[in-house]
């Protein structure tokens, strides 16, 4: 069986053409998946990404309660982000599954119990502001004050969460140490096989 040079040239051209067309498209999936999620009030926010940091796009996110009952469902966006409303304050299990059958799970602790609205008459506090010429009175309930503090804290925490997310991504990525260690293990195991076979042959 003989194949001509022109056949090979054409064959290579076709392969290169297909590859160059396909390479233009964007990337999406890799391997090990990880989830980063947190709760904010009645909502769960999260991000799902692969070991190389690329986002898990359009992946199904299922949020379950402690007993495994489904509470809500969402899909990740182009950045791998998702959010879903969950009213259950108990611990949650978040399961993300991609179209390519990759799966990741994360357990999220329960959110602190929400305080019941306080009795306005009992807890009404007056904050008095004095101007140079006249005095004005600003009335604020304890609940309003709590909401305001929560909003400020959330804004401050946002930066911290972003930082934690970046640290998580670094931890989840594959390091050169792991690769070298793995290759070392492989060589070690095969050396052991060689040693056993040699002893077996000698005996």
């Amino acid at each position, binding site marked *: 069986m003989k194949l001509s040079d022109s056949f090979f040239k054409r064959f290579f051209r076709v392969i290169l053409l297909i590859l160059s067309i396909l*390479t233009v498209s964007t990337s999406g999936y890799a*391997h*090990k998946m990880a989830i980063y999620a947190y709760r904010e009030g009645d909502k769960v926010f999260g991000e799902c990404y692969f*070991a190389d940091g*690329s986002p898990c796009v359009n992946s199904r996110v299922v949020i379950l309660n402690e007993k495994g009952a489904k509470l809500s469902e969402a899909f990740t966006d182009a950045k791998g982000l998702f959010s879903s409303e969950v009213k259950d304050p108990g611990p949650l299990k978040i399961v993300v599954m991609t179209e*390519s059958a*990759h799966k990741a799970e994360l357990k999220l602790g329960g959110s602190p119990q929400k305080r019941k609205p306080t009795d306005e008459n009992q807890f009404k506090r007056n904050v008095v502001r004095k101007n140079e010429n006249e005095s004005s009175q600003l009335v604020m309930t304890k609940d309003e004050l709590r909401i305001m503090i929560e909003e400020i804290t959330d804004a401050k925490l946002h930066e911290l969460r972003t930082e934690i997310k970046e640290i998580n991504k670094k931890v989840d990525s*594959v390091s050169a140490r792991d690769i070298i260690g793995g290759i070392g293990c492989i060589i070690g195991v095969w050396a052991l096989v*060689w040693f056993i076979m040699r002893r077996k042959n000698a005996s």
Partner: protein
Amino acid sequence: MHISEGILSPKILLAGAVLSAGGVVLGLKKLKNEDIPKAAVLSSAFFVASLIHVPLGPASCHLVLNGLNGILLGWTAFPCILLSLALQAVLFQFGGLTTIGVNSFSMAMPAVISYYLFRTLTHKGKKLAFLAGFLAGSLALLMAALFVGLALVETEKSFSPMVGAFILMNFPISLVEGVISGFVILYLKKVKPEMLT
């Protein structure tokens, strides 16, 4: 290509483990002393290949190199692939330890099939040797995608639309893998032809 933990049914996991164990035993029985360095190098190549992501098409897939393993090692590809997958599961959390049997079988069996289909072609001229490497590399990957798809469908019928998509998703990388395997075979034929015997 690796199936994660908690997806497959126990029946499929057990079947995969039994079949892989059989393949590993057969592979070790057929292993010769002089083939051990080759097996170690190819295991390492398989282990590292999964970390090389190629952005092709709507998905960025990774190299597998099971076809190259198969055409050079035959049944010994089973222990090689099993060892690499075990380390990938432990070190990188790729796949999982419970799915190692299914993952090993779905990647190693196509490698063995490639060995029987294309091994003789590597002894012919340079062009045919390249073609053998190309076909072994690309077809082994597509077969592995099919095996993974079948394992998923056997577990849950709702996965069935995934099989076609999974093969299609791996098609671009199968071409890359075919070219790499073809060139490796061609190179070995030139510098160390005894590796192909």
